């Protein structure tokens, strides 16, 4: 087990690489999901606040 963490003397390099390999994609995933949640809440708030009138007005534009 100790040998496994030792990585033949290159522990600092190998484990830093794997830490980065986890942290960088994870940070990106968290950021993406959080952004999606924020936009979803905004859409919900805007739609409920506006009621039917604005939703009708916004429809044709949204189809582009």
């Amino acid at each position: 087990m100790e040998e496994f963490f030792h990585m033949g003397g290159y522990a600092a390099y190998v484990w830093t690489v794997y830490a980065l390999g986890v942290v960088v994609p994870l940070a990106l995933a968290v950021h993406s999901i959080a952004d999606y949640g924020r936009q979803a809440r905004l859409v919900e708030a805007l739609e409920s606040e506006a009621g039917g009138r604005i939703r009708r007005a916004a429809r044709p534009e949204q189809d582009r």
Partner: protein
Amino acid sequence: MSPMTSLSASQRLQAFANPARFMALSARLLAPLWVVSLGLLCVGLYYALVASPPDYQQGETVRIMYVHVPSAWLAMFGYSLMAAASAVALIFRHPLADLCAKSAAPIGAAFTFLALVTGALWGKPMWGAWWVWDARLTSVLILFFLYLGYMALWAAIEEPARAARAAAVLALVGAINVPIIRYSVVWWNTLHQPASVFRMDGPTIAPEMLLPLALMALGFTFFFVTLLLVRMRAEILRHRVRTLRLARAAASAED
């Protein structure tokens, strides 16, 4: 550019993937994609760290390859995807293509960054220096600059439609230039470096190393696609927020 054929082609494309249908389809795809990509990555990590032997030449540092090489592959995959989506956006005016290119950029940039940093961490024990001006590292660094420039251009132009078209032009010019830059850097490298430089890619790669490499590459690729869908969904909602806000502003101006 005959208007008739391009119109029908674009109409067919629009019918194939309008934003509403994309939202419905991607919502169903996301859960399986997460399971597949995380599953592949977990198995890949096990093979990469535990179930594969150290290299007879590089020892345990060869395990760095299982993160570094897939990142470098995704760096190039991301830019190709961005360029292809930009071409579709410019030719067919497809609304999703712009969003696809925009969403792919930060993911590609993150993997390019990962490839550069893991390359440096591999270079230190192997070459004795954090950074060597080797042709491959240098061209990945330039690819990173291209990603950053693309994202900076998106951020600098406020109006989304205008930003989308300008960024698409930039991505296409970049795609034309990448092979030229790559060729020039390789040429420059052979001019300046003696031939005895240690090469990262051996002549053959052992099959027990190929398995973790393939698993990690596949896992990261699925992860890329999953994140791409998440980000594209967020972009569609962002567009919706913008139209709703514009409608609200227009309504309050009428009152």
